[in-house]
């Protein structure tokens, strides 16, 4: 670990990707993540990597498809409208089982919306914005340090399962600066060997074919069942979450990403008022840590989900709690970030 540096969230993710061995970046500028695109344009040439500004997000996602087909670590970053444009490509990438890392720095929506931080793309990220039965591994970091670590993790997990991964940040995380320590540079020779499936030239072997397509529905179903097998493994192995002062908590606040971070303040404020609050913070949004959350349903009296949206993750909370306890919700949307005080006030109303 090197010294601490002060960086923007977008740049932290970019540097983390490069250190994780990503040497190809394709993207299209969009606020509030253009700094990541810009960062890559400066950094990639310095590490003999490829930076290419695509003509659109549609082109970018397909450049990723192409580059990932060759077995290299590749990444793009975008924000809400841009990620929506990528959905056909995301579905193709999932179907072709390509290990791509996406970053969506979510802003207020729908439509053009605004450029303030939001969490209203949770459904799109976790239930599949594109068509078909597929899943991305979705990470929701709460701080820049965590974003750095999860970015490296995203590449490893993507490679391990040949499955795309998504860093779901919000505009706040993307734009804020705080001190960060970066890991060392990954020795590129230690990256996983993808020569068994990647398109690198059919020299001395059968040609490799990469596709999300089969004319025969039974074969396509088999392909899908293979994805499902993989998803099951991911569900078993890759769930991540943080619990903060849940040990004795009556009230479980559930929040992720930036909202999760803010919720820590709220927990402390509530405890100052004598309310035994705790925080359950999912870090993988898919696979969602249902069991871990369900365990708290015996102990807690109330679940209180807080999102920067009109209520999306709350469905997963309900699925986890499964009727055992009440699940309440509070959210702001359109780029408004709830303040600790207002959430606390809402919480006090509920109890």
């Amino acid at each position, binding site marked *: 670990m090197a010294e601490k540096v*002060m960086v923007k969230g977008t740049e932290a993710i970019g540097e983390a990707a490069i250190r994780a061995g990503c040497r190809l970046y394709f993207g299209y500028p969009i606020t509030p993540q253009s700094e990541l695109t810009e960062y890559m344009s400066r950094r990639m040439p310095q590490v003999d990597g490829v930076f290419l500004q695509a003509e659109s997000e549609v082109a970018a996602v397909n450049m990723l498809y192409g580059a990932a087909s060759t077995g290299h670590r590749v990444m793009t970053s975008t924000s809400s409208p841009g990620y929506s444009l990528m959905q056909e490509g995301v579905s193709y990438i999932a179907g072709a089982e390509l290990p791509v890392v996406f970053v969506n720095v979510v802003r207020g929506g729908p439509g053009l919306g605004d450029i303030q931080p939001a969490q209203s793309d949770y459904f799109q990220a976790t239930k599949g914005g594109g068509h078909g039965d597929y899943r991305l591994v979705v990470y929701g970091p709460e701080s820049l340090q965590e974003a750095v670590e999860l970015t490296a993790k995203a590449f490893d997990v993507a490679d391990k399962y040949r499955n795309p991964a998504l860093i779901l940040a919000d505009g706040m995380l993307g734009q804020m600066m705080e001190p960060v320590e970066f890991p060392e540079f990954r020795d590129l020779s230690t990256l996983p060997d993808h020569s068994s499936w990647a398109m690198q030239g059919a020299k001395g072997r059968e040609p490799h074919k990469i596709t999300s397509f089969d004319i025969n529905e039974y074969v396509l179903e088999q392909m899908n069942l293979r994805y499902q097998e993989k998803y099951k493994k991911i569900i078993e192995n890759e769930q991540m979450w943080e619990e903060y002062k849940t040990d004795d908590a009556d009230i479980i606040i559930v929040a992720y990403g930036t909202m999760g971070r803010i919720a820590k303040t709220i927990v402390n404020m509530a405890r100052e008022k004598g309310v035994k609050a705790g925080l359950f913070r999912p870090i993988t949004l898919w696979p969602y840590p249902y069991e871990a959350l369900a365990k708290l349903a015996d102990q807690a009296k109330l679940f209180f989900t807080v999102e920067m949206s009109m209520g999306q993750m709350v469905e997963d909370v309900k699925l986890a709690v499964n009727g055992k306890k009440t699940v309440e919700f509070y959210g702001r949307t359109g780029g408004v*970030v709830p303040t600790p005080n207002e959430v606390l006030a809402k919480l006090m109303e509920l109890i």
Partner: protein
Amino acid sequence: MKHHAFIAAGFGGQGVMLFGKILSLAAMYENLYTTWLPSYGPEMRGGTANCTVVLSEEYIASPVVDQPTEVIAFNIPSMYKFEKLLPENGILLLNSSVIDRDPERTDIQVFKIPANDIADELGNVKVQNMVMLGAYLKATGAVSFDSVKKALEKSLKGKKAELLDINLKAIEAGMNALVK
């Protein structure tokens, strides 16, 4: 415990973002926890810009701040928008070259700095943000001048290095301009 959480706000182009970044970086050099959080108008153009900076001896759970300890206003709408958030006796710094009105609050500490005029005199109206920064240092002592200098050196690299001098001068001028 040292804890400052300020909002600096103005028009795009007035350098409020850099104002916050320099202070945040300086805080890092002093081993404080710190976060810097910007808020722009739509995409980059038009409208107002502001940033929230927290400097603290404790882990910062929330980079969002309900109640800033200080507000630095670079234009009129920012003053009206953010003075409301200050606690009693909180500090409001105004660029009085641009803000020719008085705040509504009377229970706070108000400092008026004619930052554009001072910067203009120094030969570059753009460093008015550093004039304000100097005033902030003087008003709060949140970080040391040396840490700010280090932060500026880190930030003004390459072609911009030649601007270091005038920026430091502006900070000093700002410190002098604020009369407690």
